[in-house]
């Protein structure tokens, strides 16, 4: 499909790899609504009994699913999603249960899927562009604080390992500890260890019962795990000795937090050095030297990501080169594939050509392979020393087809030509066959040469139907991730940047590398901002180009 949906496709290789080939037109929404077309068979007459039954069953299924979803949302207390979903369910029922309003009945499923899978995703990407979402800023502040507290719990060095049993009395929980020497002590949340005389032991020497208390079996422990995991038993009155906790209900260890959190001042304090970590306003806790704690949280950063796209020196330098190459690549790809496709289509359109079908099938083969697979195969063919091209065709030459910056660009274009011409061939063949033959004959009667007929009659007529496809092909190639990523991975690398950006990187691979690349960790915020910039570029060019094609139609 023409890639106006680049925002969500951008960061996801799997989606990119599986996205249908170049320039498939025909939206998915049409297909979806077609599935519902069997419903109202006569346009304005009353529904037939069969129609009503089908309608009830289908709507019943949809509603059953909807009720299930709404219940799950209710249970997980997602109120906003619940409200929106309820409205959608009501709207669907209203559309299909009322009389008339046939267009809405056809359009509703498609529009719904469009909203969910396209519009929502686009808006979500837009939102991400204004946050610092990425590695180290992965969730909410509460989550970050919980994670820091969790990882700050360090086992007291050389402390003994205790065996533990969970007991209960008057609806509160107690832990019964047996230390390595066999000494038995009892404790509960916040209450220090106390001796527990009269404890019963099992065969391994682990204390497992105490008069007046009830021992919990494993299932009971698991059922109340949230409370039991929270039990921290101070080892003594001295906080430096740490606290005892159990993670599995059968063993306990002495822990001491390396950092303590003060909710009132919203700060972490290092229990050893006394360093204080404060919220630095950038989604992390930092001390006075700017040293941050490892886990941060997601915050809104306004236009920062857009500013960074243009000011970050490691991005700014290569960005211009990447933009120029992206344009060169997409324009050249469209031009080359169109010229070759048109040439072959014209050639194979001769009526007296034998075995036309065989040739046509052969022509379409490159189109039938997944692009990412072809990319990998070509990358092997073009290997300087072991590749088939250098070794067999060029007699053992050592030409760096993918490693020299200039040759790599040529290689990418050639491979993309190989991948892309079948589409143009198909499109042009179809368009040529729909041209009226009388025009051709009339021109020939007037004494026009074949070239003249092609130039003045066929090509202008062809462009009317093909021009919009050229624009969509441009938009597709502008974001042609597969061929670049699988063939060169964007390389060879530029020497003048820290980032893993190279001579054949186009904007979309750059975005991918920023979001998922190994360079500096994932940065969804910056990647979304870049994706929005790409969207603006592609949308602008497409809009202008579509205006231009109107002029083509006027000619005729």
């Amino acid at each position, binding site marked *: 499909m023409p890639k106006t949906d680049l925002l969500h496709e951008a960061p996801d290789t*799997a989606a990119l790899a599986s996205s249908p080939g170049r320039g498939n037109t025909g939206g998915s929404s049409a297909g979806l609504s077609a599935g519902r077309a069997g419903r109202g068979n006569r346009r304005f007459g009353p529904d037939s*009994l069969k129609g009503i039954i089908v309608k009830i069953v289908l*709507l019943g299924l949809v509603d059953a699913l909807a009720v299930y979803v709404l219940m799950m949302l209710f249970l997980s207390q997602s109120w906003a999603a619940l409200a929106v979903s309820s409205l959608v369910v009501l709207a669907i029922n209203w559309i299909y249960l009322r009389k008339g309003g046939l267009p809405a009945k056809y359009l509703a499923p498609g529009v719904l899927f469009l909203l969910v899978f396209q519009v929502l995703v686009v808006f979500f990407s837009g939102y991400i562009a204004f946050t610092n979402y990425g*590695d180290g800023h992965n*969730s909410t502040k509460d989550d970050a604080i919980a994670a820091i507290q969790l990882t700050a719990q360090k086992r007291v060095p050389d402390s003994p390992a205790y065996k533990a049993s969970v007991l209960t009395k008057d*609806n509160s929980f107690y832990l019964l500890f047996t230390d390595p020497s066999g000494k038995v002590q009892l404790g509960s949340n916040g209450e220090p260890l106390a001796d527990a005389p009269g404890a019963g032991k099992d065969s391994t020497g682990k204390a497992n019962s105490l008069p007046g208390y009830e021992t919990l079996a494993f*299932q009971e422990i698991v*059922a109340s795990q949230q409370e039991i995991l929270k039990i921290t038993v101070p080892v003594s009155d001295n906080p430096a000795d740490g606290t005892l906790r159990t993670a599995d209900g059968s063993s306990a260890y002495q822990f001491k937090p390396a950092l303590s959190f003060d909710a009132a001042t919203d700060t972490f304090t290092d229990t050893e050095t006394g360093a204080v970590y404060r919220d630095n306003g950038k989604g992390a806790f930092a001390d006075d030297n700017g040293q941050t704690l*490892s886990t941060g949280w997601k915050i809104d950063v306004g236009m920062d990501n857009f500013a960074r796209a243009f000011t970050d020196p490691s991005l700014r330098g290569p960005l211009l080169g990447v933009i120029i190459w992206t344009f060169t690549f997409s324009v050249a790809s469209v031009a080359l594939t169109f010229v070759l496709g048109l040439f072959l289509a014209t050639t194979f359109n001769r009526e007296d050509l034998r075995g036309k079908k065989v040739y046509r099938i052969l022509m379409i083969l490159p189109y039938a392979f997944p692009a990412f697979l072809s990319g990998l195969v070509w990358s092997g063919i073009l290997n300087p020393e072991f590749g088939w091209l250098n070794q067999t065709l060029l007699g053992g030459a050592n030409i760096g087809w993918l490693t020299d910056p200039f040759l790599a660009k040529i290689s990418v274009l050639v491979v993309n030509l190989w991948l892309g011409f079948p589409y143009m061939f198909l499109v042009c063949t179809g368009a040529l066959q729909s041209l009226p033959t009388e025009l051709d004959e009339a021109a020939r009667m007037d004494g026009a040469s074949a070239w003249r007929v092609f130039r003045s009659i066929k090509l202008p007529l062809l462009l009317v139907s093909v021009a919009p496809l050229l624009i969509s092909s441009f938009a597709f190639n502008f974001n042609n991730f597969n061929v670049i990523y699988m063939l060169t991975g964007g390389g060879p690398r530029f020497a003048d940047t820290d980032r*893993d950006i190279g001579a054949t990187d186009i904007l979309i691979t750059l975005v991918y590398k920023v979001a998922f690349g190994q360079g500096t960790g994932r940065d969804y915020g910056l990647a979304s901002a870049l994706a929005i910039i790409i969207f603006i570029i592609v949308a602008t060019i497409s809009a202008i180009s579509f205006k231009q094609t109107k002029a083509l139609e006027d000619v005729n």
Partner: protein
Amino acid sequence: MKVHNTLATQTSRRVFATGAISVVAALALSACGGSASSAPGSAAAKPDLKAAGAGTITMWVDAERSPALKDITEKFKTDTGIEVKLVVKDFAAVRDDFITQVPTGKGPDLIVGPHDWIGKFVQNGVIAPVELGDKAAGFQDSSIKAMSYNGAVYGVPYAVENIALLRNTAIVDAKASTFEDVVANGKKAVAEGKSTFPFLVGMDPKQGDPYHLYPLQSSLGSQVFGKNADGGYDAKQLLIGDAAGVEFAKKLAAWGDAGEKIINSNITGDIAKEKFLAGESPYFLTGPWNVPDVQKKGIKFAVDELPAAGGSAAQPFIGVNGFFISAKSANALATNEFVTNYLTSEAAQDSMYKAGGRPPALKASFEKAASDPVVAAFGKIGATGVPMPAIPEMSAVWADWGATELAIIKGQADPAEAWTKMAASIKAKIGG
């Protein structure tokens, strides 16, 4: 006719409406019932685990490891009544999926993966430490060291992996003690027409392969990061750019395309394997994952210690696979029980070895597996290795490191200059 149809329509609608209402009512009632029974569960005699949301543990695994875990999960279910749901995920995406899913509360309780994910996981606050207590002593030191991060253990290891030098004994019959000897033997074999390539190691045509070259680098005394007091890597001590590193860069240029062609930038991992299987080289620097194919091909080979090119020991990076617990597991206690008391068992570690062929991390299981001389040899070499750095800063190192090594091997850059520039670039990324 028309009247009949309208009637039918009306009746059907009424039936439908009644049906829908009753369904909603039934579901709503059952929901209330569900939540009502789980509320007062604290001291109830027969707690319903499912109602408390603790009936299952969800674990993300890849297709290869899933069958190996069947037995131990069944044992856990018989013992405790808790089911471990093994969800098979695409290994390439599982790390990032885990990081994005855990904060939403929809992530799994448990995940399998290599230890160098820990840094990213901790940075994103998605995993919880695991206290192994005395059980830690049963594991190989290197595996526990690899699982330790910021002074705490974050995972239960089950396999240790490292590379070694495979030698085709039909071409070179004696073990070499230094890399110079390896090079000399390889060249001799080429000169005598017994092979085509003196030495094989796979290079990614885009990224190079610092992982495979690291033993050579470390044998010249060059390391990536220094270590802090607790033995973990310290991002503030970036050592890669020191004099030893530059020395390695110079050697790399000498071994590279413009020099002796010992390390060939055009030989990818696949080509290297293919050539070794074809008997075209006496040496292949690789991991245990390529051994089954070599055995299948019937090539007689030995697993040699890594050759040192300089004065220090050639230390390979070791990669440790293990199990990690989600920081937001709703069933943390049962998950901890499963991880610390079941997955650490000999039976579990044995069965993971049988399925994956990776040398076990549990000493008892390793000793059993070491009856296979190949496993024993890899294990012995692994004992000298260092854990691959797990700190998040490491991800800033790989890209620069690989690309620079590749450029040096290709002879496109002055080794000393490129190496120093690389170190500066890495430092800038880590610092900023």
